[in-house]
Protein backbone atom coordinates (compact mmCIF):
# COMPACT_ATOMS: atom_id res chain seq x y z
CA UNK A 1 0.00 0.00 0.00
CA UNK A 2 1.50 3.22 -1.17
CA UNK A 3 0.53 5.94 1.26
CA UNK A 4 1.73 8.74 -0.97
CA UNK A 5 -0.79 7.87 -3.59
CA UNK A 6 -4.10 9.71 -3.62
CA UNK A 7 -7.30 7.74 -3.52
CA UNK A 8 -9.79 8.33 -6.28
CA UNK A 9 -13.15 7.08 -7.29
CA UNK A 10 -13.19 4.43 -9.99
CA UNK A 11 -13.17 6.39 -13.27
CA UNK A 12 -15.92 4.35 -14.91
CA UNK A 13 -18.18 4.70 -11.88
CA UNK A 14 -17.49 8.45 -11.75
CA UNK A 15 -18.17 8.74 -15.48
CA UNK A 16 -21.38 6.79 -15.19
CA UNK A 17 -22.63 9.00 -12.35
CA UNK A 18 -21.57 12.09 -14.29
CA UNK A 19 -23.62 10.81 -17.23
CA UNK A 20 -26.66 10.44 -14.97
CA UNK A 21 -26.13 14.06 -13.87
CA UNK A 22 -26.13 15.18 -17.51
CA UNK A 23 -29.43 13.37 -18.00
CA UNK A 24 -30.80 15.02 -14.87
CA UNK A 25 -29.64 18.45 -16.06
CA UNK A 26 -31.39 17.96 -19.39
CA UNK A 27 -34.47 16.48 -17.75
CA UNK A 28 -35.04 19.23 -15.20
CA UNK A 29 -33.57 22.37 -16.69
CA UNK A 30 -33.26 21.50 -20.36
CA UNK A 31 -29.60 22.51 -20.05
CA UNK A 32 -26.34 20.64 -20.30
CA UNK A 33 -23.61 20.81 -17.71
CA UNK A 34 -21.39 23.76 -18.41
CA UNK A 35 -18.63 25.85 -16.95
CA UNK A 36 -17.40 28.53 -19.30
CA UNK A 37 -20.94 29.88 -19.72
CA UNK A 38 -21.00 30.57 -15.98
CA UNK A 39 -17.62 32.33 -16.14
CA UNK A 40 -18.97 34.42 -19.00
CA UNK A 41 -22.10 35.33 -17.03
CA UNK A 42 -19.95 36.41 -14.09
CA UNK A 43 -17.71 38.51 -16.38
CA UNK A 44 -20.74 40.15 -17.96
CA UNK A 45 -22.17 40.75 -14.49
CA UNK A 46 -19.00 42.60 -13.53
CA UNK A 47 -19.03 44.70 -16.71
CA UNK A 48 -22.71 45.47 -16.19
CA UNK A 49 -21.99 46.49 -12.61
CA UNK A 50 -19.20 48.86 -13.61
CA UNK A 51 -20.82 50.34 -16.69
CA UNK A 52 -24.35 49.34 -17.70
CA UNK A 53 -24.05 51.68 -20.70
CA UNK A 54 -21.09 49.78 -22.04
CA UNK A 55 -22.81 46.44 -21.45
CA UNK A 56 -25.75 47.71 -23.50
CA UNK A 57 -23.56 49.01 -26.29
CA UNK A 58 -21.34 45.95 -26.70
CA UNK A 59 -23.08 43.56 -29.04
CA UNK A 60 -21.65 40.52 -27.21
CA UNK A 61 -22.94 41.46 -23.78
CA UNK A 62 -26.13 43.26 -24.87
CA UNK A 63 -28.33 40.12 -25.23
CA UNK A 64 -27.32 39.01 -21.75
CA UNK A 65 -28.10 42.27 -20.00
CA UNK A 66 -31.42 42.59 -21.85
CA UNK A 67 -32.65 39.27 -20.46
CA UNK A 68 -34.87 40.91 -17.87
CA UNK A 69 -32.82 39.69 -14.92
CA UNK A 70 -29.30 40.18 -13.63
CA UNK A 71 -26.77 38.64 -16.01
CA UNK A 72 -25.43 36.50 -13.16
CA UNK A 73 -28.86 35.15 -12.21
CA UNK A 74 -28.56 32.16 -14.52
CA UNK A 75 -28.76 28.41 -14.20
CA UNK A 76 -25.09 28.03 -15.05
CA UNK A 77 -23.92 30.42 -12.33
CA UNK A 78 -25.96 28.52 -9.72
CA UNK A 79 -24.55 25.29 -11.06
CA UNK A 80 -21.02 26.67 -10.61
CA UNK A 81 -21.83 27.56 -7.00
CA UNK A 82 -22.79 23.95 -6.58
CA UNK A 83 -19.50 22.84 -8.15
CA UNK A 84 -17.61 24.83 -5.52
CA UNK A 85 -19.40 23.09 -2.64
CA UNK A 86 -19.25 19.67 -4.26
CA UNK A 87 -15.53 19.90 -4.86
CA UNK A 88 -14.82 21.05 -1.31
CA UNK A 89 -17.01 18.24 0.04
CA UNK A 90 -15.14 15.61 -1.92
CA UNK A 91 -11.71 17.02 -1.11
CA UNK A 92 -12.61 17.07 2.58
CA UNK A 93 -13.80 13.47 2.45
CA UNK A 94 -10.68 12.27 0.69
CA UNK A 95 -8.41 14.49 2.82
CA UNK A 96 -7.09 16.59 -0.04
CA UNK A 97 -8.06 20.03 1.22
CA UNK A 98 -4.72 21.82 1.31
CA UNK A 99 -2.80 24.51 -0.55
CA UNK A 100 -0.51 23.04 -3.18
CA UNK A 101 0.75 23.88 -6.63
CA UNK A 102 0.16 21.04 -9.03
CA UNK A 103 3.07 20.69 -11.45
CA UNK A 104 5.80 18.47 -12.75
CA UNK A 105 8.68 18.43 -10.24
CA UNK A 106 11.21 20.02 -12.60
CA UNK A 107 9.05 23.10 -13.23
CA UNK A 108 9.46 26.01 -10.83
CA UNK A 109 6.43 27.34 -8.96
CA UNK A 110 6.71 30.72 -10.64
CA UNK A 111 6.88 29.22 -14.10
CA UNK A 112 3.91 26.97 -13.39
CA UNK A 113 1.77 29.88 -12.21
CA UNK A 114 2.62 31.95 -15.29
CA UNK A 115 1.85 29.00 -17.54
CA UNK A 116 -1.47 28.41 -15.77
CA UNK A 117 -2.35 32.07 -16.27
CA UNK A 118 -1.50 31.97 -19.96
CA UNK A 119 -3.37 28.68 -20.37
CA UNK A 120 -6.40 30.22 -18.68
CA UNK A 121 -6.19 33.25 -20.93
CA UNK A 122 -6.30 31.00 -23.99
CA UNK A 123 -9.30 29.14 -22.55
CA UNK A 124 -11.06 32.44 -21.91
CA UNK A 125 -10.77 33.39 -25.56
CA UNK A 126 -11.28 29.88 -26.94
CA UNK A 127 -14.45 29.17 -25.01
CA UNK A 128 -16.14 32.39 -26.09
CA UNK A 129 -15.15 31.90 -29.70
CA UNK A 130 -15.96 28.20 -29.76
CA UNK A 131 -19.20 28.51 -27.75
CA UNK A 132 -18.31 26.46 -24.72
CA UNK A 133 -15.66 24.37 -23.05
CA UNK A 134 -15.06 20.68 -22.45
CA UNK A 135 -18.21 20.39 -20.36
CA UNK A 136 -20.68 22.66 -22.12
CA UNK A 137 -19.54 22.27 -25.70
CA UNK A 138 -18.10 18.78 -25.84
CA UNK A 139 -19.61 16.68 -23.05
CA UNK A 140 -23.12 18.11 -23.15
CA UNK A 141 -22.99 18.44 -26.93
CA UNK A 142 -21.99 14.81 -27.33
CA UNK A 143 -24.77 13.74 -24.99
CA UNK A 144 -27.34 15.01 -27.51
CA UNK A 145 -25.32 13.98 -30.57
CA UNK A 146 -24.73 17.57 -31.67
CA UNK A 147 -22.15 17.97 -34.41
CA UNK A 148 -20.62 20.92 -32.55
CA UNK A 149 -19.73 18.66 -29.61
CA UNK A 150 -17.80 16.29 -31.84
CA UNK A 151 -16.01 19.15 -33.61
CA UNK A 152 -15.01 20.41 -30.18
CA UNK A 153 -13.86 16.93 -29.15
CA UNK A 154 -11.65 16.57 -32.20
CA UNK A 155 -10.29 20.11 -31.88
CA UNK A 156 -9.55 20.04 -28.15
CA UNK A 157 -8.28 16.48 -27.77
CA UNK A 158 -6.95 15.95 -31.29
CA UNK A 159 -4.91 19.13 -31.29
CA UNK A 160 -4.21 18.57 -27.61
CA UNK A 161 -2.06 15.60 -28.56
CA UNK A 162 -0.17 17.69 -31.12
CA UNK A 163 0.48 20.52 -28.67
CA UNK A 164 1.32 18.00 -25.95
CA UNK A 165 4.04 16.62 -28.19
CA UNK A 166 5.45 20.12 -28.74
CA UNK A 167 5.29 21.09 -25.06
CA UNK A 168 6.35 17.72 -23.66
CA UNK A 169 9.05 19.33 -21.54
CA UNK A 170 6.41 21.11 -19.46
CA UNK A 171 5.09 17.84 -18.06
CA UNK A 172 7.64 15.10 -18.58
CA UNK A 173 11.21 15.37 -17.35
CA UNK A 174 13.76 14.57 -20.00
CA UNK A 175 15.87 11.56 -19.13
Amino acid at each position, binding site marked *: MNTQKNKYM*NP*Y*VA*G*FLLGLLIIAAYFFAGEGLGSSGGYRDVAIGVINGVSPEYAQANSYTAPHVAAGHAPTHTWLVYELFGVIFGAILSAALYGRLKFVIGKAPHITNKKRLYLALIGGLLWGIGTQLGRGCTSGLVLSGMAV*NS*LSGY*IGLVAIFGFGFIFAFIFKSLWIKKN
Partner: protein
Amino acid sequence: MKRREFLIMALLLLGGIIAIFMSDIKPLKHIIGPKQLLHEVNKKGRYISTDEVAKMIMEKDPTLLLIDVRSPEEYKKYTLDGAINIPAEKIMDDSNKDYFDSDVYTVVLFSNGSSLADQSWLRLRSYDYKGNKVMKGGLNEWYRTILNPQKPAGDAMSGKMEKQFLFRKGAQVYFTGATPVAGGAKKAKPAPTGKPIVKRKKKEVTGGCG
Protein backbone atom coordinates in the same frame (compact mmCIF):
# COMPACT_ATOMS: atom_id res chain seq x y z
CA MET B 1 -11.22 -5.59 -15.20
CA LYS B 2 -13.09 -5.18 -11.98
CA ARG B 3 -16.65 -6.42 -11.71
CA ARG B 4 -18.30 -2.99 -11.52
CA GLU B 5 -16.28 -1.76 -14.47
CA PHE B 6 -17.41 -4.78 -16.43
CA LEU B 7 -20.99 -4.11 -15.35
CA ILE B 8 -20.88 -0.51 -16.58
CA MET B 9 -19.30 -1.52 -19.89
CA ALA B 10 -21.91 -4.23 -20.38
CA LEU B 11 -24.69 -1.75 -19.56
CA LEU B 12 -23.38 0.79 -22.07
CA LEU B 13 -22.95 -1.86 -24.74
CA LEU B 14 -26.47 -3.13 -24.12
CA GLY B 15 -27.77 0.45 -24.35
CA GLY B 16 -25.86 0.93 -27.60
CA ILE B 17 -27.43 -2.21 -29.04
CA ILE B 18 -30.91 -1.17 -27.93
CA ALA B 19 -30.32 2.25 -29.48
CA ILE B 20 -29.86 0.69 -32.92
CA PHE B 21 -33.48 -0.37 -32.90
CA MET B 22 -34.85 3.00 -31.88
CA SER B 23 -35.99 5.77 -34.13
CA ASP B 24 -34.16 8.99 -34.81
CA ILE B 25 -34.88 12.19 -32.98
CA LYS B 26 -36.68 14.09 -35.68
CA PRO B 27 -37.58 17.74 -35.41
CA LEU B 28 -34.28 19.36 -34.72
CA LYS B 29 -35.59 22.89 -34.89
CA HIS B 30 -35.85 24.34 -31.46
CA ILE B 31 -39.40 24.87 -30.34
CA ILE B 32 -40.21 28.07 -28.52
CA GLY B 33 -41.95 27.65 -25.19
CA PRO B 34 -45.51 28.95 -24.73
CA LYS B 35 -44.43 31.71 -22.36
CA GLN B 36 -41.94 33.26 -24.72
CA LEU B 37 -44.35 32.86 -27.62
CA LEU B 38 -47.08 34.70 -25.77
CA HIS B 39 -44.62 37.42 -24.89
CA GLU B 40 -43.65 37.86 -28.53
CA VAL B 41 -47.23 37.74 -29.78
CA ASN B 42 -48.00 40.69 -27.56
CA LYS B 43 -44.96 42.63 -28.66
CA LYS B 44 -46.33 43.57 -32.12
CA GLY B 45 -42.81 43.88 -33.45
CA ARG B 46 -43.77 41.53 -36.26
CA TYR B 47 -46.01 44.04 -37.98
CA ILE B 48 -44.96 46.01 -41.00
CA SER B 49 -47.24 48.69 -42.40
CA THR B 50 -48.65 48.71 -45.91
CA ASP B 51 -46.74 51.95 -46.52
CA GLU B 52 -43.44 50.28 -45.73
CA VAL B 53 -44.29 47.33 -47.97
CA ALA B 54 -45.32 49.66 -50.80
CA LYS B 55 -42.08 51.56 -50.43
CA MET B 56 -40.02 48.38 -50.58
CA ILE B 57 -41.85 47.19 -53.69
CA MET B 58 -41.42 50.54 -55.41
CA GLU B 59 -37.76 50.65 -54.55
CA LYS B 60 -37.46 47.10 -55.86
CA ASP B 61 -35.83 46.04 -52.64
CA PRO B 62 -34.15 42.75 -53.53
CA THR B 63 -34.41 41.40 -50.00
CA LEU B 64 -38.21 41.63 -49.91
CA LEU B 65 -39.99 38.31 -50.12
CA LEU B 66 -43.77 38.65 -50.12
CA ILE B 67 -45.67 35.53 -49.19
CA ASP B 68 -49.39 35.27 -49.82
CA VAL B 69 -50.76 32.77 -47.31
CA ARG B 70 -54.28 32.67 -48.77
CA SER B 71 -55.64 29.89 -50.96
CA PRO B 72 -54.27 29.45 -54.51
CA GLU B 73 -57.66 30.55 -55.92
CA GLU B 74 -57.53 33.86 -54.11
CA TYR B 75 -53.90 34.23 -55.05
CA LYS B 76 -54.75 33.81 -58.73
CA LYS B 77 -57.39 36.52 -58.57
CA TYR B 78 -55.23 39.17 -57.01
CA THR B 79 -51.97 39.43 -55.13
CA LEU B 80 -49.14 41.86 -54.61
CA ASP B 81 -46.37 42.35 -57.14
CA GLY B 82 -43.84 39.57 -56.92
CA ALA B 83 -45.62 37.69 -54.15
CA ILE B 84 -45.39 33.94 -54.00
CA ASN B 85 -48.18 31.74 -52.73
CA ILE B 86 -47.76 29.44 -49.75
CA PRO B 87 -51.18 28.63 -48.31
CA ALA B 88 -51.22 28.87 -44.52
CA GLU B 89 -51.76 25.15 -44.03
CA LYS B 90 -48.66 24.35 -46.08
CA ILE B 91 -46.38 26.84 -44.40
CA MET B 92 -44.49 24.24 -42.38
CA ASP B 93 -43.86 21.95 -45.36
CA ASP B 94 -40.24 20.99 -45.78
CA SER B 95 -40.15 22.35 -49.32
CA ASN B 96 -40.79 25.84 -48.03
CA LYS B 97 -38.15 25.74 -45.33
CA ASP B 98 -35.55 27.62 -47.34
CA TYR B 99 -37.66 30.76 -47.59
CA PHE B 100 -37.88 31.19 -43.83
CA ASP B 101 -34.51 29.84 -42.90
CA SER B 102 -32.49 32.50 -44.65
CA ASP B 103 -31.09 35.61 -43.11
CA VAL B 104 -31.17 37.26 -46.51
CA TYR B 105 -34.84 37.98 -47.02
CA THR B 106 -37.27 40.22 -45.27
CA VAL B 107 -40.18 37.80 -45.35
CA VAL B 108 -43.57 39.54 -45.29
CA LEU B 109 -46.63 37.37 -44.80
CA PHE B 110 -50.01 38.69 -45.83
CA SER B 111 -53.61 37.59 -46.19
CA ASN B 112 -56.89 39.46 -46.58
CA GLY B 113 -56.88 40.72 -43.01
CA SER B 114 -54.16 40.16 -40.44
CA SER B 115 -55.33 36.99 -38.74
CA LEU B 116 -54.43 34.30 -41.28
CA ALA B 117 -50.98 35.82 -41.72
CA ASP B 118 -50.69 36.13 -37.94
CA GLN B 119 -51.49 32.44 -37.54
CA SER B 120 -48.84 31.53 -40.08
CA TRP B 121 -46.34 33.77 -38.35
CA LEU B 122 -47.11 32.11 -35.03
CA ARG B 123 -46.58 28.64 -36.43
CA LEU B 124 -43.27 29.68 -37.92
CA ARG B 125 -42.18 31.46 -34.76
CA SER B 126 -43.00 28.48 -32.56
CA TYR B 127 -40.43 26.56 -34.58
CA ASP B 128 -37.89 29.29 -33.94
CA TYR B 129 -38.00 31.00 -37.33
CA LYS B 130 -37.07 34.57 -36.65
CA GLY B 131 -37.42 37.87 -38.45
CA ASN B 132 -40.60 37.17 -40.41
CA LYS B 133 -43.06 40.03 -40.72
CA VAL B 134 -46.81 40.33 -41.06
CA MET B 135 -48.34 43.05 -43.22
CA LYS B 136 -50.65 44.84 -40.83
CA GLY B 137 -54.26 44.82 -41.96
CA GLY B 138 -53.48 42.65 -44.96
CA LEU B 139 -54.86 43.30 -48.43
CA ASN B 140 -57.89 45.13 -47.07
CA GLU B 141 -55.58 47.68 -45.54
CA TRP B 142 -53.55 47.66 -48.73
CA TYR B 143 -56.63 48.64 -50.68
CA ARG B 144 -57.64 51.29 -48.16
CA THR B 145 -54.26 52.94 -47.88
CA ILE B 146 -52.39 52.33 -51.10
CA LEU B 147 -54.83 51.58 -53.89
CA ASN B 148 -57.48 53.99 -52.78
CA PRO B 149 -56.04 56.46 -50.29
CA GLN B 150 -58.47 58.97 -48.84
CA LYS B 151 -57.43 62.49 -48.09
CA PRO B 152 -57.43 62.92 -44.32
CA ALA B 153 -60.53 64.78 -43.28
CA GLY B 154 -60.57 68.41 -42.20
CA ASP B 155 -58.07 71.18 -42.55
CA ALA B 156 -56.12 69.96 -39.58
CA MET B 157 -53.80 67.94 -41.71
CA SER B 158 -50.49 67.71 -39.96
CA GLY B 159 -47.29 67.78 -41.95
CA LYS B 160 -46.70 64.15 -41.26
CA MET B 161 -50.11 63.11 -42.42
CA GLU B 162 -49.80 65.20 -45.54
CA LYS B 163 -46.50 63.61 -46.35
CA GLN B 164 -48.02 60.18 -45.82
CA PHE B 165 -50.97 61.05 -48.04
CA LEU B 166 -48.70 62.31 -50.79
CA PHE B 167 -46.67 59.13 -50.58
CA ARG B 168 -49.81 57.06 -50.81
CA LYS B 169 -51.00 59.03 -53.80
CA GLY B 170 -47.70 58.37 -55.46
CA ALA B 171 -47.92 54.71 -54.57
CA GLN B 172 -51.41 54.60 -55.97
CA VAL B 173 -50.12 55.88 -59.28
CA TYR B 174 -47.37 53.30 -59.21
CA PHE B 175 -49.60 50.36 -58.44
CA THR B 176 -52.79 51.20 -60.28
CA GLY B 177 -51.66 53.47 -63.06
CA ALA B 178 -54.25 55.98 -61.94
CA THR B 179 -53.78 59.57 -62.97
CA PRO B 180 -53.21 61.80 -60.00
CA VAL B 181 -56.42 63.72 -60.76
CA ALA B 182 -58.72 60.75 -60.96
CA GLY B 183 -58.90 60.11 -57.23
CA GLY B 184 -60.49 56.63 -57.03
CA ALA B 185 -58.63 53.42 -57.52
CA LYS B 186 -58.68 51.86 -60.94
CA LYS B 187 -58.67 48.21 -61.53
CA ALA B 188 -55.73 46.66 -59.78
CA LYS B 189 -52.91 45.24 -61.76
CA PRO B 190 -53.59 41.64 -62.66
CA ALA B 191 -51.73 39.07 -60.65
CA PRO B 192 -48.48 37.97 -62.14
CA THR B 193 -48.98 34.85 -64.16
CA GLY B 194 -47.33 31.80 -62.75
CA LYS B 195 -45.11 31.58 -59.77
CA PRO B 196 -42.32 34.15 -59.83
CA ILE B 197 -38.92 32.62 -59.72
CA VAL B 198 -37.43 33.12 -56.34
CA LYS B 199 -33.80 32.43 -55.95
CA ARG B 200 -33.28 29.99 -53.17
CA LYS B 201 -30.77 30.99 -50.61
CA LYS B 202 -27.37 29.61 -51.30
CA LYS B 203 -26.56 26.65 -49.15
CA GLU B 204 -24.41 27.64 -46.24
CA VAL B 205 -20.85 26.53 -46.18
CA THR B 206 -20.70 23.25 -44.39
CA GLY B 207 -17.74 21.78 -42.68
CA GLY B 208 -15.26 19.25 -43.95
CA CYS B 209 -16.72 16.84 -46.42
CA GLY B 210 -20.27 18.09 -45.81
